[in-house]
């Protein structure tokens, strides 16, 4: 079952990829409908397999499938091994389940795209790699998945490659992730050095010396800051919105960006050994949650708001992991996958309905025009705000609760996260209010043309809406994944405080944007982080680059030119001797012969 689960998306990738290549060679077009159906079928089959595999897991423990020997180097041999336990099972269900819905949604969304076959091939490749990541039984295999999803993400961000900005966004994501991957690699080497194996089961149990343990945790966390877009490497995620919206929903909201949380949860026994490392994770998580929530309040692009919101929510998850509540983090991964995928897909439906408009200040009054989108978006909105009984309520309160009461939690952490929650309510309500209520702020013609999305797009919205509403009650499986951090029922005080926080944020936003004439706000990146990075690193790299250029032009090329000059000069000198007359050569020969004779006879005579 586990093997077939990862083989289905692979098969989809191979079929769609081969078909796209074949038709590109013959100048024909891949039918988006057929290609999308193949990809979606593959994902639905994988989801079925994931459900069946889940049923096979013993109460405590895991299923392991040894596929083949991957490589062996000296005493080290690495098997290609799949391992399913409660933790990876949650991820596989989310990946295949949410993935299948997003594939279905894409069939309609990408209907008019010329390269739909390529798109579905990439999407299947992504799911295959993501399953590799969460099912990998050895660290290199997790790394393979880790890099594979990065590749798929890069390909899909730059999917509409005719616009240079999209390509640049893809490259930015790829390069930012490389910084984190270095951390992963070094951490993998440390793990191997101290445990003598790359098997996750062994590495999980290794006990590292204090200093090494902290650096291991920090290196792993560096990898997570790249992949899961945390401070300081988060700036690629908002730019990643250049890709098609379903991609944003699947890769940059629901699955790939949560792989950092998976990694921390997977290695939690090792991670927990370092108090310093944990404190750093919690601190960075909370700081990211707050800072990106502030930035989200100043965005105009509907997808950018959601992107910053994703970074902020990921910050919540890392804060949870940092205080030792890995279960709460994973729980939030799951609920977040539901409601954020929903919000993105609904945003995609709005964009689709308005033929590509993404500016929330040019929307408004779409409630009547897009009823399904509106109601499902409402479910997502309520879930991210944490209104009971929506899914976000359970997971977010759990995180807030753990931030306050767990051993490494503190009032500071709780306070920061609470402010982030208020801001979350503010920017989400701002978005919600501006898009769906009030008077339309676009051309009348455009407003009249706005239309509800077709069934393949509406169906995933409804399903995800239901999950956003009810997903919170599925806390039990997560609880099983991490028995050591059992879900504690949030105390009433925290529940009330968090709901009040959400209500305050929502009310401010509603009031502020309920005036009859909404003034368009300029987009602002508040902290100018991109500008600072380009000054700091771009400037430094510029200096290094010009120094290298000087070195290359003057020193390296100079040496080469010197060799050439020496050859040239000696050639010109010897050239004089080449007079062309055989007798002159003969004379030279005889002179040389005489000299040689005298030289060798020197000792004899």
């Amino acid at each position: 079952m586990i093997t077939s689960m990862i083989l289905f998306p692979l098969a989809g990738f191979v079929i769609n990829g081969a078909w796209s290549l074949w038709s590109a060679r013959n100048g024909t077009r891949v039918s988006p409908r057929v290609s999308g159906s193949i990809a979606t079928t593959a994902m639905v089959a994988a989801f079925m397999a994931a459900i069946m595999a889940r049923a096979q897991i013993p109460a405590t423990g895991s299923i392991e499938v040894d596929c083949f020997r991957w490589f062996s180097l000296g005493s080290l041999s690495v098997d290609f091994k799949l391992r399913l336990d409660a933790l990876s099972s949650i991820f596989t269900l989310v990946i295949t389940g949410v993935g299948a819905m997003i594939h279905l949604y894409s069939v309609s969304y990408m209907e008019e795209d010329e390269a739909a076959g390529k798109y579905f091939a990439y999407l299947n490749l992504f799911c295959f790699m993501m399953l590799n990541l969460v099912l990998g039984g050895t660290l290199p295999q997790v790394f393979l998945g880790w890099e594979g999803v990065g590749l798929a993400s890069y390909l899909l961000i730059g999917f509409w490659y005719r616009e240079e900005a999209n390509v640049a966004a893809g490259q930015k994501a790829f390069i930012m992730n490389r910084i984190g991957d270095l951390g992963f690699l070094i951490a993998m080497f440390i793990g191997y050095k101290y445990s003598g194996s790359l098997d996750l089961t062994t590495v999980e149990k290794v006990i590292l010396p204090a200093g090494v343990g902290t650096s291991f945790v920090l290196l792993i966390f560096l990898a997570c800051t790249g992949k899961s877009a945390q401070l300081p490497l988060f700036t690629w995620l908002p730019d990643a919105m250049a890709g098609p919206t379903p991609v944003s929903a699947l890769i940059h909201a629901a699955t790939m960006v949560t792989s950092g949380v998976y990694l921390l949860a997977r290695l939690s026994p090792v991670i927990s050994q370092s108090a310093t490392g944990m404190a750093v994770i919690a601190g960075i998580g909370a700081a990211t949650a707050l800072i990106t929530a502030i930035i989200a309040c100043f965005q105009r692009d509907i997808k950018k708001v959601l992107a910053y919101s994703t970074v902020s929510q990921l910050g919540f998850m890392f804060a949870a992991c940092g205080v030792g509540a890995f279960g709460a983090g994973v729980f939030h991964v799951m609920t977040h996958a539901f409601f954020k995928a929903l919000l993105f897909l609904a945003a995609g439906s709005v964009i689709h309905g308005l033929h590509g408009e993404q500016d929330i200040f040019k929307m408004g009054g779409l409630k009547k025009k897009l009823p399904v989108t509106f109601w499902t978006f409402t479910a997502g909105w309520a879930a991210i705000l944490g209104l009971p009984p929506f899914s976000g309520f359970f997971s977010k309160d759990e995180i807030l609760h753990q931030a306050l009461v767990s051993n490494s939690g503190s009032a500071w952490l709780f306070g920061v996260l609470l402010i982030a929650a208020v801001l979350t309510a503010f920017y989400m309500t701002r978005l919600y209010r501006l898009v769906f209520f009030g008077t339309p702020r676009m051309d009348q013609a455009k407003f009249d043309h706005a239309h509800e999305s077709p069934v393949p797009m509406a169906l995933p919205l409804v399903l995800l809406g239901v999950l956003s509403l009810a997903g919170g009650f599925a806390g039990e499986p997560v609880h099983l994944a991490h028995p050591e951090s059992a879900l504690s029922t949030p105390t009433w005080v925290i529940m009330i405080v968090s709901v009040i926080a959400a209500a305050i944020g929502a009310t401010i936003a509603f009031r502020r944007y309920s005036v009859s004439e909404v003034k368009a706000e300029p987009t602002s990146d508040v902290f100018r982080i991109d500008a600072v990075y380009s000054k700091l690193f771009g400037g430094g790299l510029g200096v290094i680059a010009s120094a290298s250029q000087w070195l290359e032009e003057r020193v390296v090329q100079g040496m080469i030119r010197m060799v050439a000059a020496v050859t040239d000069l000696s050639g010109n000198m010897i050239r004089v001797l080449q007079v062309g007359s055989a007798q002159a050569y003969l004379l030279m020969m005889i002179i040389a012969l005489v000299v040689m004779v005298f030289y060798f006879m020197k000792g004899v005579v």
Partner: protein
Amino acid sequence: MTAFEPWMLLVVSILVFCIGLLGLILRKNLLVMLMSIELMLNAVNLCFVTFSKMHQLLDGHLTVLFVMTVAAAESAVGLGLVIAMFRNLRSVDSDQIQLLRD
């Protein structure tokens, strides 16, 4: 008739060789150059025979026979080349054949 001392023969041999060498270097006429080469070869032959006589060994005589054969072949080929050159250039001047220089 007094017997020649070997050193006399060797001096003659050296003189003939040097005359041949100078002729080869200085004269521009290819026919004369070929003749100079013959002189040098025969100077060497004389040398061989002298040493052979001195040491009472036949090896020198044998080598001389070989050298004479090779010299005959060489002059045949050389003359052929000179004739071919004369047909093309109407001259047998060695300064005329410097094509390889450039």
